[in-house]
């Protein structure tokens, strides 16, 4: 099953646009190339369009325009063949809670025409691998969140797909369970050569798992590269300052205008990030400049560039804020979120 594409790309997306009814432009012309055999991260705040991209690439939803090939096959022209080649773990679990673990796995196998001894063997193998052998006969409704997620992934692997889609696989999991899940995902690519398209709104998750990633913001890809490459583009350190109160328009920029060594400044009314050559030297200067304009500082920190800085650099917004905002915008129309 794991045949390699001639050009080594597992997923190719060109100019993908998705407009939902009500004129929501969820994807605004994205281009993505996912090389085979590694984890590709699609990082973006809530509402960026990650799930939409996964739904379209996995043949669930239809693109408004653009072309998408998965395992070399056009998803619109030949959805059926694409479905044979992929495994999908949606943002909402696809586990049938009325069935037990074994039955869930068997169901997926039978749909894919795997029968008899072969199916039995594969099911046992997966139960073992995902630590579910002891709970195989328990109805999935009674599984813990972590167990359900593991079962979810296992059911997507029954037919040994070439490409696995994981839409926010660790959202809602406890930190320890999340770490376990990360190890499992790493194992899948390293040992089984699986291509994984993983979406996440956790910066550390993208940083740790993704060999390459694309940052998605408001339906557009704003940056692509390996986490290292993206961070290296931002030389030096980042100074992060939280103010005690919202600053009047423009004062932050005016205050820091003449501070030496600031390469780039991003801010909103309450917090700012300054890219500087050397953090330790710049901090006192920055603090002084702010205080002199009457801007009281609540906290200050210095760090090596993170993906958060990368995100801010390309979007001018702080990731966490964009994420909260996105969540807020989506929840009133709550039903749409599937």
């Amino acid at each position: 099953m794991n045949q390699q594409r001639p050009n080594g790309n597992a997923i190719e997306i060109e100019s993908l646009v998705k407009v939902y009814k009500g004129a929501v432009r969820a994807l605004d012309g994205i281009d993505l190339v996912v090389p085979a055999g590694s984890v590709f991260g699609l990082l973006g705040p809530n509402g960026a369009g990650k799930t939409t991209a996964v739904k379209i690439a996995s043949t669930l939803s239809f693109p408004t325009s653009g072309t998408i090939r998965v395992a070399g096959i056009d998803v619109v022209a030949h959805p059926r063949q694409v479905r044979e080649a992929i495994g999908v773990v949606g943002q909402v679990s696809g586990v049938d809670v009325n069935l037990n673990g074994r039955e869930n796995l068997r169901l997926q196998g039978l749909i894919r025409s795997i029968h008899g001894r072969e199916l039995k063997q594969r099911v046992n193998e997966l139960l073992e691998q995902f630590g579910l052998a002891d709970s195989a006969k328990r109805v999935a409704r009674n599984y813990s969140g972590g167990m359900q997620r593991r079962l979810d992934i296992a059911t997507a692997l029954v037919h040994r797909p070439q490409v696995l889609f994981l839409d926010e696989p660790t959202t809602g999991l406890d930190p320890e369970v999340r770490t376990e899940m990360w190890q499992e995902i790493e194992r899948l690519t390293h040992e089984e050569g699986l291509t994984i398209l993983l979406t996440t709104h956790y910066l550390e998750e993208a940083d740790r798992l993704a060999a390459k990633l694309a940052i998605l913001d408001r339906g557009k890809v704003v940056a692509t590269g390996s986490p290292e490459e993206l961070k290296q583009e931002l030389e030096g350190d980042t100074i992060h300052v939280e103010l005690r109160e919202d600053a009047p328009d423009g004062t932050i920029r005016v205050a820091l205008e003449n501070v030496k060594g600031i390469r780039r400044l991003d801010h909103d009314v309450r917090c700012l990030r300054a890219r500087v050559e050397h953090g330790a030297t710049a901090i006192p200067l920055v603090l002084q400049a702010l205080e002199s304009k009457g801007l009281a500082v609540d906290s200050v920190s210095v760090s090596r560039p993170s993906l958060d800085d990368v995100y801010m650099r390309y979007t001018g917004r702080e990731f966490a804020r964009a994420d909260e905002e996105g969540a807020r915008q989506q929840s009133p129309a709550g039903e749409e979120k599937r």
Partner: protein
Amino acid sequence: MKELLSHSLTMTDRDLRRLARQPWWIVVTLVQPVIWLLLFGPLFKGIANIPGFHAHSYIQFLTPGVVIMTAFFSGGWNGMATIDDLNRGVVDRLLVSPLRRSAFFIGHVLQTSVSIIIQAAIIVVLAYAMGAHFANGALGLLVLFTAAVLLGGSLNAVSNGLALIFRREETLIATLNVFMLPLTFLSSAFMQQNLIPHWMQVGARFNPLNWAVQASRSAISSGTDWGSVGTHLGLLAGLLVVCMAFATRTIHTYQSSV
């Protein structure tokens, strides 16, 4: 064809396992028909004496009506389970697999058929104990069960299709009520055709629920009009095909909206 069958049976198997894990469900759905039998039977006994009423006894007359009504609702409410599947991501998971689209609905229809046969059997036994007679023996009962399954299956397909279109419990319940209730009133399930108002008789002619009641009532009574039984069963079979075609199309509608 082999794949379609295998996929359908896989889906049926899934549904039956779910059902087997909540066996109280079958009891719950039998409460209403049993009340009809136990209450209406004795209550309306006198109806059998109305001039122009042909059946041997009211219970005899009532039984096919109750079986068909039960099948009707059993199939009709089946979409609720699909709403649950939608909310849990189960439908999406199935749709991104090579599952044959019609198998999704055939599976549900087969599962409903099994429940309907179980329910019908219980009702028939109960009615027999209460003094109903079944003419034409096994053949009569076969017609009764077939009519129930064809009607319940049609409703099942429509209900599951509507679930994919509306995706919300409240909307589905409202819509199902709007078209299921009139059908139950415009039928001869509880009252003989020629004894209900004329306009209702006209409406009943186009009512699938009534086709099923007419066919099965005639088949278990003496002096069966087999021609009419055959026509009604044929109409019901046609209805099932139409409903299946409708349901299968709703998958595209669903995929266009997610």
